[in-house]
Every structure is written in structure tokens, then in C-alpha cells.
């Protein structure tokens, strides 16, 4: 069924949003397959975004882990993370649909930045909803978003974090669907969002597959990605899902330790539920009230897992795992000192998992980490962690 991934997905929204979702679904089906759309998007991917991003053989990390480790360098994408793939795609789609304005939400700020960039490139207004707590924690990205001419609207409802920002953006959208597109930032939300986001992000996996074939002459043994909503993971995994010999690892935020008040590990601590328009794996209490997630990585701080990654993990195709904050910071240090790359805290989850689970990877195995973003946005946090104030 369209919009369903096993028992996950669907379109759980109020009546006032239905027409917008249907309109979006139709527009996506109409425009995306056209040469015209593809060419414009590919051009922006290449000339604005910097695609293809490289596949880098990380020699020092390989030595440490004891296998061949490659990094798919989404950190080199314009804006510093994989987020632009989706933002450019949706902004272009919104423009084709005749919308004049984008609204979106952001936690780490990475998606807000990419949305603002994409809006400017395509020529749309943009308003970014952001939890007051995230605004505080991600001050420098807030400045970037504003500098890019976007309006930043603080979200004070709930805990003032990402899930509340998503809720508020959905509320806002309900009042302005006629001229406004909701640029969903990850593979979450009601159909067709998860499908649209995954489609735009799957450029990662397509490139990765071609690159590793060229460099190694074969498919990788494993692909590892971090995530919460799952967009970078699904983007990297999609072309490999049908390749049963390729192991897929999804690393979520373990937080401080594995209990619901100190973690964001929804696959370990959550259960299926319905939030923000879709059925998915969610951290929640026994009554179905959503639990706030907790991790030092703002971009993983969402209690839900998008429908597609929920299904991939539920069905056993993807192995869900997690990394704890302290291992994540250690991974930042190792990557910085060994390869000269400061990863985003989100990305460092995937790195930490590989560093700490060398036994899972054999000597001549080829492991690709989807290096989803750079750590500039987290610099303060990282430095404070290592050197104090």
C-alpha cells in the first residue's frame, strides 16, 4: 500500500491537511519523474551542493577497526550535512507547485540551514520553527539561519524541542497550505513525506554504490549510518536493501545510558505508535504519551523513527544499534586526530559504533560509514566536553 512500510507509515493527520498531502503526493508523482525536474535538481546537486560527494578510504580508522573503512562524505555537501539533498529537492518541488513559501522545523539547525539555502536558491520565503531549548543549544546555527534571511520562530510548547517544533509546524501548515509547503526535514511525517525525503536522499546510496564498485570492484560488506528520523540512513541504505549480503547498521543516540529518561534509543526503548502523522517506532510511556528523547546530538533528539527505517529494523533487514554519549565524544576525538575530520555529533554515533565493534567486521571486509555531517555546529559542545569551559 502506498505510504506504508510494513505496519509503519500512513497518513494520520487532521482533515484540513489531507488535501495538501494529496496535492503534494500528486505533484511529486508528476514532476519528479520528468527530465526537466531531474536536470534542474541534478544541476543544483552538482553546482550548488557539490555532488557527488567523495567516498574516502579512511586508512587510520581502518587500521584501528581492523577492516577497510570508507567514509561517504556528506559533510562536504554545501551546508555541512546531507540535509541539503532533501531541501533542494523539496524546494524545487514546492516551486513547481506554485508555492511561495516554505515552513520547516529544525533541531540541530542543520535542516534549517539547508532549508534556508534551498529557499534562497529556488526563490521562496522561508520560516523555520525551532524549539526554544534547541535555539539556546544551537545558537550559532540560529545565527546562520537568520543571516540566510529566514524567519526563525521559537516554539515554546511542550519541552521546546524538535518534536514540539514539528507539531507547531504542522499546526502552522494547517492554516496556510494554499501558498506554503512544509519542507519536512527527515523521513518522517505523513505520506508522502517519508517517500519524498527518502527519494531525494537516496542520491547518497546511489553514488556510494557506484563509487565502491569502482574502488573495490564489489559491494561493501556493511553500511553504517546514524539517525533518528532516518533520512541519511535510508538515503544510504536504499540501493542496498535488496542486496542481502550487505549488512546495514542503524545507529541511534544511546544518550547517557539505556533508560527512557536518558536516551534517544527508540529501537531499544520504544514501541510502535502514531506521531506526527505516521505509525512508527516511538519512545512513549505505557499510555501512549510521547517521551522526550535525550542525547547530546541535537539531530538525533527525536523520539520517533521514520516509517521506513522502523520497518527495515522491525523486519530484521537493518540492525538497530546505538552509541553512548561518551563513546561518541571519543569517536570525535579519534576521527579528528587520525583523519583530520571533525564529525558532527550525530555522525560520530556511526563512527563510535564501528570503532567499538571491530569484532563485527573482519579483516578484509569493506565497511562504509555514511559520514552525514561536519562538526562545526557542535564545536562548542565538543570543546567544552574535552577542555571544560
Amino acid at each position: 500500500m502506498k505510504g506504508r512500510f510494513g505496519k509503519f507509515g500512513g497518513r494520520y493527520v487532521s482533515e484540513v491537511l489531507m488535501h495538501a498531502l494529496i496535492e503534494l503526493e500528486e505533484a511529486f508523482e508528476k514532476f519528479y519523474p520528468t527530465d526537466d525536474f531531474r536536470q534542474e535538481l541534478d544541476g543544483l546537486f552538482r553546482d550548488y551542493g557539490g555532488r557527488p560527494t567523495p567516498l574516502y578510504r579512511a586508512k587510520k580508522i581502518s587500521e584501528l577497526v581492523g577492516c577497510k573503512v570508507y567514509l561517504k562524505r556528506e559533510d562536504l555537501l554545501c551546508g555541512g550535512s546531507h540535509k541539503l539533498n532533501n531541501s533542494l529537492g523539496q524546494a524545487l518541488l514546492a516551486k513547481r507547485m506554485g508555492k511561495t513559501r516554505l515552513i520547516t522545523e529544525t533541531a540541530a539547525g542543520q535542516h534549517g540551514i539547508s532549508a534556508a539555502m534551498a529557499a534562497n536558491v529556488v526563490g521562496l520565503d522561508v520560516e523555520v520553527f525551532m524549539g526554544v531549548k534547541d535555539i539556546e543549544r544551537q545558537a550559532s546555527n540560529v545565527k546562520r539561519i537568520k543571516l540566510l534571511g529566514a524567519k526563525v520562530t521559537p516554539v515554546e510548547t511542550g519541552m521546546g524541542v524538535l518534536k514540539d517544533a514539528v507539531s507547531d509546524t504542522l499546526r502552522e501548515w494547517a492554516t496556510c497550505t494554499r501558498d506554503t509547503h512544509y519542507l519536512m526535514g527527515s523521513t518522517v511525517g505523513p505520506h508522502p513525506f517519508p517517500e519524498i525525503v527518502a527519494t531525494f536522499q537516496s542520491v547518497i546510496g546511489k553514488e556510494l554504490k557506484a563509487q565502491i564498485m569502482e574502488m573495490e570492484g564489489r559491494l561493501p560488506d556493511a553500511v553504517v549510518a546514524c539517525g533518528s528520523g532516518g533520512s541519511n540512513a535510508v538515503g544510504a541504505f536504499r540501493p542496498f536493501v535488496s542486496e542481502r549480503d550487505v549488512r546495514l547498521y542503524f545507529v541511534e543516540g544511546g544518550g547517557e545510558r539505556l533508560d527512557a529518561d536518558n536516551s534517544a534509543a527508540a529501537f531499544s526503548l520504544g514501541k510502535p505508535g502514531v506521531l506526527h502523522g505516521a505509525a512508527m517506532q516511538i519512545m512513549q510511556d505505557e499510555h501512549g504519551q510521547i517521551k522526550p528523547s535525550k542525547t547530546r546530538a541535537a539531530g538525533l533528539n527525536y523520539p520517533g523513527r521514520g516509517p521506513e527505517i522502523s520497518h527495515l529494523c522491525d523486519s530484521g533487514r537493518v540492525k538497530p544499534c546505538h552509541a553512548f554519549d561518551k563513546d561518541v565524544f571519543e569517536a570525535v576525538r579519534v576521527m579528528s586526530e587520525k583523519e583530520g575530520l571533525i564529525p558532527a555529533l550525530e555522525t560520530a554515533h556511526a563512527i563510535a559504533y564501528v570503532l567499538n565493534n571491530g569484532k563485527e567486521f573482519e579483516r578484509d571486509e569493506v565497511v562504509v560509514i555514511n559520514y552525514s555531517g561536519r562538526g562545526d555546529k557542535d564545536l562548542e559542545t565538543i570543546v567544552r566536553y574535552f577542555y571544560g569551559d
Partner: protein
Amino acid sequence: MEIEEKFRQLKSRGEGAYMPHVYYGDPNEEFSIELIKTLVENGADMLEFGVPFSDPIADGPTFIAACERALRGGMTPTRCIEGVRKLRKAGVDVPIILTTYYNIPYVMGLEKFTKTVKEAGVQGLIIPDLPIEESDELLRFAEKSNIRVIFQVAPTTSDERLEKIVSAASGFLYVVNVEGVTGARESLLESTVNLLKKVRARTDVPLMAGFGISKGEHAAAMVSNGADGVITGSAVAKIYSKNLKSPEKTLQEIAKFAAEMKQACKERNKSSTS
């Protein structure tokens, strides 16, 4: 009393129905019970009984705050259902329409949920984030428990979807008369009238107009233009929110408000499209 009977009764009296929406447990259970009694005593024909949810995406600021307060106070779906029982015991006999987001029944299990709420005394369900396309399962269990599932229609609902909704409708249809979320507005949209006419042409199911109704004149305009009644959302919560320390002190004002709304629902013939 079943919903259908209530509408029959009102029709025979030539009155529109008035249904206020409250979130149970805000700011505490005792007040909610007093509030509901006051509303019913002062003219509420039905009750939209909200089960607080952590992420009420179809609600506006007033109800978001209401949910937060109720949850902070320890309100749970189980205690809400218990609350319905208490109301019935206390003699509240109007139809109770239980409103909550889909995750609550989803997590409890639809079968258990529908059965339990029916047993507690609920006549209908409003699940604002459950469109017709996703409601097959709930409809199945609701029918088993003889409970109505109330759907919304909006100005943006396509003819095709309206057809589907109308054919699944029972109890009444919730006519969303602004492109927005719950919240008191000062004026109504022309389009609502058109929407009411359009839906009326396709079904005999009662039509309740909701969203943004906070004044008697709104209600009067609705019932004068084809609605079988009106729903007030956050208007009541707005009143007691002004005095959360002693909300009971606002009950008088709320009584007056409810009476005014009910009065307006009776005046369908005196008023015209505003």
C-alpha cells in the same frame, strides 16, 4: 443517551445542538467534573470530552497548554475513562464524545479501547489525526461496540473524499469551518456556509460546525445556515485559564457563556448569515 436520539430530541424542539470541548483533568480532575456539570446544566447538549495527549498537533495554544497541565497533574487515558464513569454516576446524561489522538487507542489496542470507553459511557469518538483513509480498523471495532466515529469535513475536502466520508459517517459530521486549528476567531468564513450546503446535499447526518466559535453570534450564524449545532473549542478553556489558581471562581462566567451559546443555537430563525 445515544447521539441520534439527542439530535431527534433537539430537532423536535427546533433547536441546534451545543457541544463544548474540554480537556479532562485541566487543571485537575475535580474542576473538570464541576466544569462539565456546569456546562451541561447551562445548556450543553453533548460533551466533547478530551483525553489529554502529549502532542496534540491539531490543537492551538490554549488546548496545548491544557493538555500539558492535565498531564503534569497526572492525568492518563485510564483515569479519563474512569472520569466518564464518574460523570455518568454523577448524573451527567448527555452524549459524551471522547476526543483524543490516535496514538492513545493505538497503544491500548483498538478493540480494548472501544470496548472500555463504551462501557464507561461514551457514545462517540473524535480522533482528529485519523482521516477516513486510516480508519477502517477503528470503524470495525467501533461498530462492534456500537460507538460512533465522528469524521471531519473541511472546505478543502475534495468531492471524492467527501463522498467517502459521508458514506462512513455516523453520529454527526464535524464541519471544520476555518482552514486552521482550534482557537477563537472573531469572524467566520463565507466558505463555511457553502461547505455546510455542499455536505447537507449529500447526507442527512447531523452537521456540527466547529473551530473558532467563541461567540453567540458565530453560533447563531451557523445554525441559521444549515448547521445542526456548534462546537466551541478553546473558548471555555480560555475563560478558566485566566484564573488557574481558583478556576472554580470562573464557573459562573462559564455558565453564562454556555447559556449564551445554547440560546444562540435556539435562535436559528432570528439570525441570518453574518
